[in-house]
């Protein structure tokens, strides 16, 4: 039982709050008392060296992994925990099921369902989970496939699509659940260089025209600089430095940030 964290956040709190979140794999501490707030409509990029815990931040928020300590709040309510008596206790599956749809995730490896067409991929969860009729779900899915430029390919199976096309369908599939926050984990890392642009364009338009709240783990420094409201530099499970893109890329304060930026900017 946790009594140090509040059962609800006050009005006007950020959409997502990590409060002292710790995640361990055995003896390895991957997230170390992490505090992180994400405001409504904010676009936050997470950068940092391999193994610094970037993917883990997204996975614990998506509830794919349980945390060891701390609390994650979404929409003012605890997500990893639920209120019990005077404090908080770990969420049950049922409690999670009622809240998980607020979060959407796009994976590095797309993870489209191979036995379904692009359209079926986008219709499945809205029908099964949100209880939409087939008509409504298809209308919603078609609009989103158009939005990501995949309307023409709606009846193709994933194996018939390029990596860039698959990733755009995966974005549409996540959007079809109307999440309040979208998590993007290195969504262009598995793509051939010539198709990265088409996926970045989709993300750009989601950000500028649709004002979606997004947390994006990326190695595309130029893109992060262009699009983010805020950039967080992760090092060993902590935010070593964060700030506006101008400040973090233009005038980094932390030694680790400087080293990291040197290394990646030299490499590209």
């Amino acid at each position, binding site marked *: 039982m946790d009594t140090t964290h509040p059962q609800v956040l006050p009005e006007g709190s950020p959409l997502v709050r990590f409060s002292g979140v710790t995640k361990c794999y055995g003896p390895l501490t991957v997230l170390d008392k992490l505090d992180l707030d994400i405001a409504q409509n904010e676009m936050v990029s997470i950068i940092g060296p391999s193994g610094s815990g970037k993917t883990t931040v997204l996975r614990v928020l*998506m*509830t*794919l992994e349980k945390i060891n300590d701390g609390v994650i709040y979404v929409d003012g309510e605890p997500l990893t925990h639920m209120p019990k008596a005077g404090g908080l206790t770990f969420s049950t*599956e049922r409690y999670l*099921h009622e809240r*998980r*749809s607020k*979060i*959407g*995730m796009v*994976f590095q*490896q797309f*993870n*489209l*369902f*191979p*036995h379904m067409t692009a359209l079926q991929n986008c219709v*499945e*969860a809205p029908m*099964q*989970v949100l209880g939409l009729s087939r008509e409504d779900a298809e209308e919603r899915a078609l609009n989103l496939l158009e939005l990501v430029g995949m309307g023409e390919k709606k009846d193709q*199976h*994933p*194996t*018939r699509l390029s990596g860039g096309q698959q990733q755009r369908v995966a974005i549409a*599939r*996540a959007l079809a*659940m109307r999440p309040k926050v979208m998590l993007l984990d290195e969504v262009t890392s598995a793509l051939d260089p010539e198709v990265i642009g088409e996926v970045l364009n989709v993300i750009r338009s989601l950000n500028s025209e649709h004002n979606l709240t997004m947390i994006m783990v990326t190695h595309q420094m130029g893109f992060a600089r262009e699009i983010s409201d805020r950039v967080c530099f992760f090092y060993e499970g902590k935010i070593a430095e964060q700030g506006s893109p101008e400040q973090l890329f233009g005038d980094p304060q932390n030694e680790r940030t400087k080293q990291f930026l040197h290394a990646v900017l030299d490499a590209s």
Partner: protein
Amino acid sequence: MGYWEFLVEYLPKLANGAVMTVMVMVCATLLAVTVSMVFGLMRLSSHFAIQGAATVYIEFFRGTSLLVQLYWIYYVLPLMGLTLSPFISGVLALGLNFGAYGAEIVRGGIQAVPRGQYEAALALNMSPFSRMRRIIIPQIYTIILPPAANLTVELLKATALVALITVVDLMFVAKQINATTWLSAQVFGTALIIYYAMARFALIPFLRWLELIAARKIGKA
């Protein structure tokens, strides 16, 4: 008696037996598939008792002789008040036994679906039941069909055991003919050819066709 005359005289009888063999085969396969699915899923349950029950079942049926299981169902269950026809006994023994092997194939197939599929379905907030039924199970067929096909051919060959509990199948008819004519080479030679032909020209092509359909369903081939 030449082989041709032998065939003219006895092939119709052997064919009748073969029809019974096919019936045993089809019913036992349907039972085995059901048992495989149910116990394969139970093996992956996070519930200790459910998983344990499946493990005991699989261990028992794989660890003891099929012939003894057959005799148990046909000769021992009546002593406990449950009398079953030879046909039902044969189908039960074959289905329950091969289902235990099939359950392990199903379990392996489910575990072989990439973890990302499970995670994508979870990220879409699909319930455990929907995840299994709509996302994971439809993807196991391409994985499990090749080993399941081997097992099905084994099952066809094992149906010959039901002759021992008086099911009038191909093997039973062959033994009958042999007992009256002593044409052992002709009778059992023909029976071998019929078993081979059923497997080679009916069962295996059918299973290949299923594999092709499964591959198409996930956009391969």
